């Protein structure tokens, strides 16, 4: 890797890239709130630069990382930074509110937990745990019987093995979120197939980072 701190640079690139993947498109604008050590020493470590690189879709060893601000400006991507106390979270935590060029917006909160490893802990209002080590899909759906079975059956039909699965709902019968980590990447065709199932609102394939 290149960059002075694995948590503050490599991990920050991966957090940005996961936020981009979860938003599911090209990032038009983002508001990033830095907490704890990210806020205190992030600028010296290039955390801001690294997060923007991730939002641009760069990998942690991309040589363009130091110039990410210029590349973002060129791409018309607007990023604003703030600092705040986000409460009882890991000291290297960022809250990233992303809006894509297609108009979707999502709030992603995650932590850089050391040695470049990351954990997404919040997607919108849902508490999740996503490390980016495996490909994943995020499925927003209606809380009704059969949806979980239909999604897992569609994955099984494509020989995609589920490594972990988390399901959350706002409340009974309301909007719910499935986060599924898989051993094999979920291609466009499978994602589209899942999107066409009964009860599905949106599907995002989130690549490993």
């Amino acid at each position, binding site marked *: 890797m290149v960059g*002075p701190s694995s*948590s503050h640079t*490599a991990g920050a690139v991966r957090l940005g890239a996961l936020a981009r993947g979860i938003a599911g498109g090209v990032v038009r604008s983002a508001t990033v709130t830095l907490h704890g*050590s990210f806020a*205190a020493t992030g600028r010296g470590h*290039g955390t801001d630069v690294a997060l923007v690189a991730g939002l641009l879709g760069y990998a942690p060893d991309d040589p363009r990382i130091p110039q990410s601000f210029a590349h973002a400006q060129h791409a018309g991507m607007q990023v604003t930074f703030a600092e705040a106390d986000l409460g009882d979270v*890991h000291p290297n935590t960022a809250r990233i509110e992303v809006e894509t060029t297609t108009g979707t917006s999502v709030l992603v909160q995650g932590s850089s*937990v*050391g040695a470049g490893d990351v954990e997404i802990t919040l997607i919108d209002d849902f508490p999740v745990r996503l490390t980016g080590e495996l490909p994943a899909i995020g499925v927003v759906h209606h809380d009704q019987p059969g949806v979980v079975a239909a999604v897992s059956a569609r994955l099984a039909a494509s020989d995609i093995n589920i490594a972990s699965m988390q399901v959350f709902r706002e409340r009974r019968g309301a909007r719910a979120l499935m986060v599924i980590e898989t051993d094999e990447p979920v291609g466009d065709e499978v994602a589209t197939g899942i999107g066409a199932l009964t009860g599905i609102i949106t599907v995002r394939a989130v690549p490993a980072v």
Partner: protein
Amino acid sequence: MAYATYAGLAEAARIHGSLGAAALAREAEDSGLSPDALNARMGAELDVMESAISAGLAGTDRSRSGLTGGDAARVMAGPSVLGPGFRDALASAIAVGETNARMGRIVAAPTAGASGVVPAVLMAIGRLRGSSRAQTISALFAAGAVGAVIAARATLSGAAGGCQAEVGAASAMSAAAAAEMMGADPETCGHAAALALQGQMGLVCDPVGGLVELPCVMRNATGTAVAFAAIEMALAGVRFPIPLDEVIVAMGQVGRSLPPSLRETALGGLAATPTGRSLGRTACTPYGSPAPERDGDPNA
């Protein structure tokens, strides 16, 4: 998943023949990649480690911040109190840290801030023992598996656990791996790691100006020295009475007890000294903008 305890890793090592072989087998299982492919990948990491040492030793310029640079070459040319093996290892550790501070390519082992210890210790022992490239690669797998245990049971983040979780962890990883290169059994390797980690229990993370340079670069050298002390004791038969898994959990608990000012916030320790504050204010960041000024309460 990687081994979650050192006891589990050591048990697998007895079956596979070494910590390195056990780590490789588990990695192959988890990734679906062949041992040959994984060895080739680790070989590429070893190449980066070697280049980082060479680049650091050759460089006499300061980092962009001006806080570090030239000390690796200085140590290499120094009088050497304990002999060339020890001197070369210290110089190598500093060299990797200086390469990192110059925004050169390094292997986070386990982290960028603590990237000097593992290459310094393993290369030094490799030279001493005349180890083959394959043996050094196996030692890197062993070091990685110990690091994964520390990540699972405690933390590898200076922001979460202080420098003991970074340089301390790197010392423990390299002590176990180097002891194995010296022919030690998994139990002895565990004692080497425990001895290294106990020697840095409570070490704080207090980077001047919030940059991974001062004291990080020098701490890679002192962490290397601790690793050698641990290896020497373990190979002589010293048994640390508290098992490595428990030492690791204790390190994590100590880390959580550290005030935030001593966990990579640049608000305490050396960063909060009058000179540290002054250096932090004038230092440029690796990306060219000035370092943020911090005037928080050092006892927060």
